[in-house]
């Protein structure tokens, strides 16, 4: 190994050499500046048996940050169920892995990229996609689907429109360039996200079940390679940025933004997957937050080993980079490979084919230390396990807010709309409920020619060529619910995903989650966090769905203003036979329409209706009923398997009416209306716009109606015939009187174009 000459591109960067940042230095003062507390500093000194040196302190500052160590959330996340016979890899690896049959595994995870997005929406959101894709392909899986969950401030403000437009374009460019379809997701708008937008990206890949790669060094002496992009000063402080609130100086933090290169990542993906077909690799780890530091320490610690490296060998793009900058850079599209001794040339050959750098920077050792040298001098030598496992785990105090418990909002206490037609159009065209077409038409959702259910459906569905099965996935969370009742909201987020998968006919096999919250040091934020986790846990256990990984994003606060507690649940399910997939749009005139599930109740709390017509986000969300959800899901899957359901649509935000509107429009532009006849003894408001869970709309051929009724009866699910499919219009009669009559054109004008108008500022 010779000392590398300065890399080509660094030699030729124009302009003055930026003076490198050496880090905060050593000692308590410097520790505080790195975001560590006095107690944490003392803990480091005690564990090390000495004071950390300058670079070492920088490593701790990153590794013990909230972002990397989950110090405020670990104790609570441990409550999630994480096991099932299908789970091949649970939380702790780059992504979770679940056996899906036919010798395959689904590898998936959702992760936030909130803070970078506020600073630079295009690059922030794009690099979020890049990061989650690397998490998936480091496991040896070829990514086959993407989804994303977005939260922005109201589109009435041009600034929010610009943030949304930038983030969507960034996501589109990255995912599209990679050739991975974006098959689903969600977008929601609330004032609390204006200064704290949320971007959560989900990726799913497929791998042979017996060839899952792990980030675990296995043998001392194996060389460690740095591959992919060169290292620059991108994202220095990224991990600590994500672990602090934004003050007014967010502008000043701007230079830390990373720039994504989807083309380079595509090459990296192909090179890694090509290498993974052979035996060259012992371990693979993405360089994400805290870059080289986190990837080396974690890979070594998981194997109970150490890693030593020479920083002079790290390929770089800029001159004058300090050890601190090299160790903490978050330059994108880089990976750490531990190569089995003897396979070095194989690695070089494959990476050369793909025009990529693959440079040995060190090797695995048996002393358990992360040893860093620069120009031959030792600049850090710290036990890997102290960096990765010894960060404190806080049981932060929680305090019930004074306003709790939240009162219910009864439909019977609200005025009925003067004009029901107008009410339906107004809701269906509102930014919260209008078709997400403006967003997903910017995403390539058809590349790979495996997409069976396109975005806009309850769940995205992809097939696997040559296999019988298909995979369904959904990404859900309603933060208005969690804001007013964190526990119910957490439960309902899981219920929604569970029901969405059942609607397409899929059996959930695993879930991932991203928990977006404010400052965990605030007891009221912590109260919300604990309750959301508890609510989710209840539902996950009831449904036997394990969590296989995820991400917590705290400190989504700017100038003291925090976001609604926002859990986002990504659920993955399987259809054993892709041919049994049920679509959500009505299919043919004459089909009968049924409403399955519990009665709608009388609650309108935290509903879209309340928000749009009364500008209120208050009120307790509807009460979850886990048993009813299980029965409904069983019924929906059985009806799908037996080929009875022609369409199925879960009822959630916007209620029954919104579900009907969405069912009218097929992805190919075809329209099929319905005539509905409801017999109601309670408030029509709750029946039409209420968001009571555990309900779904199902259409069947007339001749299958009796069979469907028998399936429902056996599943103990109430089934009511509510209408008939046909025409292009949506007609609703209530107790025999005409209440709603809307033409397909008027509906499409509102629902199909509502979001584009709001984004263009021309509602």
């Amino acid at each position, binding site marked *: 190994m010779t000392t590398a000459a300065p890399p080509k591109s660094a030699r030729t960067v124009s302009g003055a050499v930026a003076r490198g940042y050496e880090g905060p230095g050593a000692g308590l003062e410097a520790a505080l500046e790195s975001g560590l507390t006095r107690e944490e500093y003392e803990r480091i000194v005690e564990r090390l048996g000495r004071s950390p040196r300058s670079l070492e302190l920088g490593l701790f500052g990153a590794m013990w940050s909230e972002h990397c160590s989950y110090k405020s959330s670990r104790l609570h996340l441990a409550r999630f169920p994480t096991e099932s016979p299908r789970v091949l890899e649970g939380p702790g690896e780059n992504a979770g892995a679940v056996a899906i049959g036919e010798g395959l595994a689904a590898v998936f995870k959702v992760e936030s990229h909130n803070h970078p997005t506020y600073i630079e929406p295009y690059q922030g959101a794009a690099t979020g996609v890049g990061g989650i894709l690397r998490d998936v392909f480091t496991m040896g899986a070829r990514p086959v689907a993407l989804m994303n969950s977005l939260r922005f401030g109201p589109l009435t403000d041009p600034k929010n429109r610009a943030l949304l437009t930038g983030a969507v*374009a960034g996501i*589109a*460019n990255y995912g*599209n*360039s*990679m*050739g991975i379809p974006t098959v689903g997701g969600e977008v929601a708008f609330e004032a609390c996200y204006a200064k704290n937008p949320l971007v959560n990206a989900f990726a799913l890949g497929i791998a042979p079940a017996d060839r899952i790669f792990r980030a675990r060094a296995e043998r001392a002496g194996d060389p460690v390679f740095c591959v992919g992009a060169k290292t620059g000063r991108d994202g220095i402080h990224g991990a600590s940025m994500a672990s602090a609130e934004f003050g007014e100086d967010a502008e000043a933090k701007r230079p830390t933004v990373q720039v994504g*290169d*989807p*083309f*380079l990542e*595509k*090459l990296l993906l192909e090179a890694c997957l090509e290498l993974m077909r052979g035996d060259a690799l012992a371990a693979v780890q993405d360089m994400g937050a805290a870059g080289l530091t986190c990837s080396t320490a974690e890979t070594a610690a998981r194997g109970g080993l150490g890693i030593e490296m020479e920083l002079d060998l790290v390929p770089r793009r800029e001159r004058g980079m300090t050890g601190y900058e090299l160790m903490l850079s978050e330059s994108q599209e880089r990976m750490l490979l531990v190569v089995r001794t003897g396979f070095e040339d194989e690695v070089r050959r494959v990476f050369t084919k*793909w*025009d990529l750098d693959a440079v040995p920077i060190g090797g695995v050792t048996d002393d358990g230390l992360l040893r860093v040298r620069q120009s031959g001098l030792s600049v850090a030598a710290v036990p890997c396990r102290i960096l990765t496992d010894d960060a404190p785990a806080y049981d932060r105090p929680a305090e019930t807010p004074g306003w709790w418990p939240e009162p219910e909002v009864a439909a019977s206490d609200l005025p009925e709309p003067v004009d029901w037609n107008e009410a339906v159009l107004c809701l269906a065209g509102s930014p919260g409920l209008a078709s997400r077409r403006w967003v*997903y*038409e*910017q*995403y*390539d*959702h*058809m*590349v*790979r*020619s495996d*997409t*069976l259910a*396109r975005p806009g459906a309850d769940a995205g569905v992809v*097939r696997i*060529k040559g296999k019988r099965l298909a995979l369904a996935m959904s990404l859900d969370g309603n933060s208005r619910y969690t804001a007013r009742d964190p526990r119910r909201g957490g439960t309902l987020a899981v219920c929604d995903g569970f029901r969405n998968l059942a609607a397409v006919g899929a059996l959930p096999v695993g879930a991932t989650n991203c928990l977006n919250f404010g400052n965990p040091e605030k007891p009221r934020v912590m109260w919300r966090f604990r309750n959301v986790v508890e609510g989710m846990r209840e539902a996950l256990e009831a449904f036997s769905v394990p969590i296989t990984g995820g991400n917590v994003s705290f400190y989504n606060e700017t100038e003291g203003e925090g976001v609604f507690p926002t859990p986002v649940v990504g659920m993955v399910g399987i259809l054993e036979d*892709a*041919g049994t*997939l049920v679509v959500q749009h009505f299919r043919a005139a004459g089909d009968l329409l049924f409403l399955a599930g519990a009665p709608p109740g009388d609650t309108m709390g935290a509903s879209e209706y309340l928000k749009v017509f009364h500008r209120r986000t208050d009120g307790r969300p509807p009460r979850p009923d886990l048993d009813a959800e299980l029965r409904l899901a069983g019924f929906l899957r059985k009806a799908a398997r037996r080929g009875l359901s022609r369409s199925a649509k879960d009822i959630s935000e916007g209620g029954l009416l919104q579900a009907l509107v969405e069912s009218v429009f097929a*992805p*190919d*532009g075809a329209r099929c209306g319905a005539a509905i006849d409801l017999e109601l003894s309670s408030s029509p408001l709750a029946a039409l716009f209420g968001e009571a869970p555990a309900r779904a709309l199902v259409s069947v051929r007339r001749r299958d109606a009796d069979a469907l009724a028998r399936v429902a009866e056996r599943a103990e699910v109430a089934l009511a015939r509510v209408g008939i499919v046909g025409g292009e219009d949506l007609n609703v009669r209530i107790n025999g009187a005409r209440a709603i009559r809307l033409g397909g054109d008027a509906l499409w004008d509102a629902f199909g174009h509502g979001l584009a108008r709001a984004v263009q500022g021309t509602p």
Partner: protein
Amino acid sequence: MRRTRFAVLVFPGTNCEGDVLHAIRTVIRQDAELVWHKEGSLDGFDAAVVPGGFAHGDYLRAGSLARFSPVMTPLAEMAASGRAVVGICNGFQILQEAGLLPGAMLRNRSLTYVCRDVWLRAEDRSSPLTAALDEGEVLRIPVGHAEGNFHVSDAALAALEDRGQVLFRYCDAAGRASGAANPNGSRNHIAGVRNERGNVAALMPHPDRAYEPALGGTDGVRLFESLARWNAS
């Protein structure tokens, strides 16, 4: 009858090669092999398809850097020899940058990537993409691109139209070409063209995403049937 052997070119950043390969093998049951862009020869192949994607990241201009790849030399020879050379989406842009097809692509009028089904009307049958179609046949096929706004000078446009080199136009479901049906703002609603000789042809929409009912459409099959028929004749 001997099967046609298709080369499906793969540049760094190409991402629709698997779709094209799968469609050729399963829809028209012909032979197809992936060919890496560093190959200097296309010996043994009867025809070539340049699939969609983002060759070289679409950096500089879509398709522009691909023309420096070694495989472009035998590809140009294949075109000159009269064998079929076909481009889809990014493949269209690459063939334009290589000078094998006329025109250039501007960014979409919307300035955004557009992924959705569009309607196409077949205009000319003398190409490997249209040989099996009826003139005026209307097809529903998805697009997925950010730079598909076909542009040529007025004179070149008139010449293209005169010589019947326009293969497809964006239209509505009834076959009427119109601005509202045009997803990118292309001149004369052009979606696909051929060279004068008729052996090099390309289109922006993706027949490789509409070849089975499960994918939401099967009209792409008609274009693959054309490929098979043109090569068999």
